[in-house]
């Protein structure tokens, strides 16, 4: 048991009180309201609404595309973080600053721009479409948009870890005769893994809920390129509140699971670090 440190700082009651009040008013009550209202839907009806053919197709695309995008972010994000922290090359600072660009760009603008780039007559599309790589109005477009919006997560989670990584450990590995690749695989990669997984989970969670950037690039065709959040909006516009709330609660449940996973990983990583 750690000895309790004397803490003379004032303001705990005030700040904690305000934090809990604001958290309840903005986050907890709205989430609670949605859940309570959805509980009013009979279970059989809930199940039917949650598992319509169209909803299942939408989940499949949402989860599939988000997983691929988060995986792409994990791989390229790790590479990018490595290159940015370990190497000195012209334009490094510009690239470093540019990594936050997807956070700053309004998602609707991101969607329009990406659709424009990958369209048949776009800057990239004119070279890619002849080879059958269609980025606009296809599931691939969804993956592209999600990769764009999720990009900063892995890079920004990994960068501080790489910066604080102790070079001595690598030197020890080299002294013991390990090649560079061997050192990376068995010394560096294991200690980066928790951060990569956290970044992956953040990008994945963000991708599941993403709406703005996708609606402009995907074309929103039911059963083909329609994502779950878009289907919720469709239900709302048809004044089908039960349908909208059912799908929303499914996505919300998934958000909770992702948060729990991220927390377990972080706790595990902290224990590992000690």
């Amino acid at each position: 048991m750690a000895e309790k440190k004397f803490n003379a700082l004032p303001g705990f009651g005030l700040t904690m009180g305000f934090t809990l009040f604001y958290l309840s008013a903005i986050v907890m009550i709205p989430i609670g309201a949605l859940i309570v209202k959805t509980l009013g839907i009979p279970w059989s009806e809930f199940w039917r609404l949650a598992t319509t053919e169209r909803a299942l197709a939408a989940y499949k695309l949402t989860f599939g595309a988000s997983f691929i995008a988060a995986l792409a972010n994990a791989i390229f994000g790790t590479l990018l973080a490595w290159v940015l922290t370990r190497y000195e090359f012209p334009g490094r600072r510009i690239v470093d600053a540019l990594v936050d660009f997807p956070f700053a760009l309004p998602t609707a603008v991101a969607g329009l721009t990406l659709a424009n780039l990958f369209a048949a007559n776009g800057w990239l599309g004119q070279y890619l479409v002849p080879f059958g790589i269609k980025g606009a109005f296809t599931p691939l477009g969804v993956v592209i948009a999600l990769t764009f919006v999720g990009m900063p997560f892995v890079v920004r989670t990994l960068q501080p870890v790489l910066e604080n990584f102790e070079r001595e450990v690598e030197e020890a590995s080299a002294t013991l005769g390990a090649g560079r690749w061997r050192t990376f695989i068995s010394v560096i990669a294991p200690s980066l893994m928790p951060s990569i997984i956290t970044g992956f989970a953040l990008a994945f969670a963000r991708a599941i809920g993403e709406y703005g950037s996708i609606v402009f690039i995907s074309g929103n065709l039911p059963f083909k390129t329609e994502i779950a959040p878009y289907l919720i909006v469709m239900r709302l516009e048809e004044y089908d509140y039960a349908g909208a709330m059912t799908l929303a609660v499914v996505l919300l449940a998934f958000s909770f699971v992702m948060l729990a996973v991220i927390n377990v990983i972080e706790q595990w990583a902290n224990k590992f670090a000690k």
Partner: protein
Amino acid sequence: MAGITKRQFTAGRAKSQRGTEESPLAKWTLISIAMIFCVVFLLLPLVNVFAQAFSKGWDVYWQALTHPDAWAAIKLTLLVAAVCVPLNVIFGLAAAWAIAKFEFRGKTLLITLIDLPFSVSPIVAGLMFIVLFGLQGFFGEWLRDHDLKIIFAVPGIILATVFITFPFVARELIPVMQATGTDQEQAALTLGANGWQTFWHVTLPSVKWGLVYGVILCNARAMGEYGAVRVVSGNIAGKTQTMPLRVESLND
């Protein structure tokens, strides 16, 4: 400064580090792959935004910008950000103070709850406020009887945006405040400063950059939010249309 000393340091150890550096071939291959990825996913979209905006010349751009509805959208977007950012800054400072400077049970749970809006879909967020304040919602009839409008009006847009941008400032401040510890504040108090003085003159300067970064992220998201605002706003040109919604309506 730090950069220079670090470089000299590395240069001085260059020989002894041979075992911990990749071959130039591997190094430049990695840099090239990373740069190709950056060009496709960062640089081209950035350049394309501006190329698109000015593709029909300055006059068309200027006309689009000075259209009355566009002007109304700009004003609404600025208003929403002007309300949301200060609210979340106050919350961020309060939450970071309580979490970083004190020990209490359930801290991990509290941090998790603060992060929750990050992983909730903006569409789901918007729907929550419809469930609360929409015509068929919990407070729907009461609001109608008192002639108050939240959904399809500005208060709804502000609420949805506050929810979406909720964690940004707190998330940046908590680790920074935790890293600085409480020693300096304790010293200030011992020297006779009161709580507010300690906060203004000791804590705030030490977390300045974290706060600035949090405000920038919060503001960018508040101005750019599309999904949540779309659900609650009704998208009426000149009235409840923010900039991102106007982008959509012009695109159709």
